[in-house]
């Protein structure tokens, strides 16, 4: 099922309550996922369970400390947004500018990801472009089980890109940590891994694969969501005849969560193995030991029993109508011990930390700059599927305040 020969025997789980319960229950493990792409993500934090997973989680937790997140936002995100999107200003029609949201979001996320990893050479347009170019075939290799292309070819391309990533980005950073880097103990992943070789086991390639995981997670999903968030908001304003899209905190965070719920830009089906006979508390559904489950994240996040009969529709005011203690973004960040490590970086204050978060930071600036669709160029979805925009041109017209209407 789900178009993957490697997962032909998956038992589908689509109800939100069941997906949420299984993600939290330790009798369901992630260990057997990614059978083909293991040379890219095998044995990384997403694919291990129990005590081994907990060791990694403990090692990497300082990366998402309040101090680290605040530093990233102040020193990296805010200056970059000020330089690319700018700050609100008054002006004439001539101040109308055009930007493409996809490369903008990709550059922003790539630089943040590079800082979290501790690699250099990415703080320039050519550096982010090169890393993006390498990451694409690596990510395709890591998720090859879903690819309609020849799998051996996809893996070979990913392997070549991985070798180039190691040579150009990872190895120089790793070697620097090997010499001495005690001054910034918990600021980046490579420093943490270099100091924790014993805890990570003896596999010399594991730090490379963990780095790939962090890069893919920090760039793929947030970049996809930023374009979808703008698309959802502009479409909502058009449908509801709203002349000014609110940019206040509550509204915008409700809109961001709604986009996260509706657009699963990462793996649409999470695989879990049942390790013993289990009857779910939420619904009474039974699973045998050894059953392989396909948790359908898209279906779960559109479950009408939890999110309402109009669950397929974008509604920034939905949060008050959600039942069953569900979060307004559903299972967008997974759940249980494998919950997304970077959740706070995306959600900001909604995750209890004192930062805006990537999505809010960019969207609030775009709204204040008078964002509207580019009437000449339509957004383009990636050729590989319907879950990513390859291009999303917009106009910014500061003189129009919070309006989403186009430049004159």
């Amino acid at each position: 099922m789900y178009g993957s020969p490697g997962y032909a025997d998956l038992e589908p789980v689509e109800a939100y309550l069941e997906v949420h319960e299984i993600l939290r229950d330790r009798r369901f493990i992630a260990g057997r996922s990614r059978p083909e792409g293991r040379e890219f993500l095998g044995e990384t934090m997403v694919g291990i369970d129990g005590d081994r997973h907990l060791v990694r989680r403990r090692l990497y937790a300082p990366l998402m400390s309040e101090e680290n997140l605040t530093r990233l936002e102040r020193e990296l995100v805010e200056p970059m947004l000020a330089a690319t999107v700018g700050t609100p200003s008054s002006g004439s029609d001539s101040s109308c500018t055009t930007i493409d949201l996809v490369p903008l979001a990709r550059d922003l996320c790539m630089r943040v990801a590079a800082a979290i990893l501790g690699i250099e050479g990415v703080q320039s347009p050519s550096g982010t472009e090169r890393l993006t170019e390498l990451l694409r075939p690596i990510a395709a290799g890591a998720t090859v089980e879903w690819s309609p292309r020849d799998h051996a070819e996809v893996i070979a391309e990913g392997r070549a890109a991985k070798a180039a990533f190691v040579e150009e980005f990872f190895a120089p950073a790793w070697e620097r940590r090997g010499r001495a880097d005690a001054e910034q103990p918990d600021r980046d992943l490579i420093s943490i891994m270099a100091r924790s070789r014993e805890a990570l086991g003896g596999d010399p390639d594991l730090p490379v694969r963990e780095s790939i995981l962090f890069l893919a997670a920090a760039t793929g999903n947030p970049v996809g969501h930023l374009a979808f968030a703008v698309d959802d908001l502009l479409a909502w304003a058009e449908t509801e005849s709203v002349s000014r899209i609110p940019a206040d905190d509550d509204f915008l965070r409700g809109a961001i969560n709604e986009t996260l719920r509706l657009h699963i830009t990462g793996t649409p089906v999470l695989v879990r193995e049942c390790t013993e006979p289990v009857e779910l508390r939420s619904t009474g559904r039974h699973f045998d030991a050894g059953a392989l489950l396909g948790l359908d994240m898209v279906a779960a996040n559109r479950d009408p029993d939890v999110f309402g009969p109009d669950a397929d529709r974008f509604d920034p005011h939905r949060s008050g109508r959600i039942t069953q203690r569900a979060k307004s973004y559903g299972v967008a960040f997974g759940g249980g011990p494998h919950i997304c490590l970077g959740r706070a970086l995306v959600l900001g204050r909604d995750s209890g930390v004192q930062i805006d978060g990537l999505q809010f930071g960019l969207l609030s600036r775009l709204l204040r700059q008078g964002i509207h669709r580019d009437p000449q160029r339509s957004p383009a979805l990636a050729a590989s599927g319907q879950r990513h925009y390859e291009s999303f041109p917009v106009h910014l017209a500061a003189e129009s305040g919070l309006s989403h209407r186009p430049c004159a």
Partner: protein
Amino acid sequence: MSAGGHCTVSVNPATCEGTGLCEAVAGALFRLDEDDVARPLVSRVPADLVDLAQEAEQMCPTRSISVEAE
């Protein structure tokens, strides 16, 4: 705080998502209840468990745990 002093610990049930990471890291201090919400097992943390309480606080993805020095 970890240099010998006690601390208090609390969990915000409204934001807790029941990941169970606190229970896994500091099982002597936290337990998930029947609704999968983390509950502190003690209000006053013994000095020898303060480091664990702080680690659980840092690891909580929803920042639902508060550890305060007494």
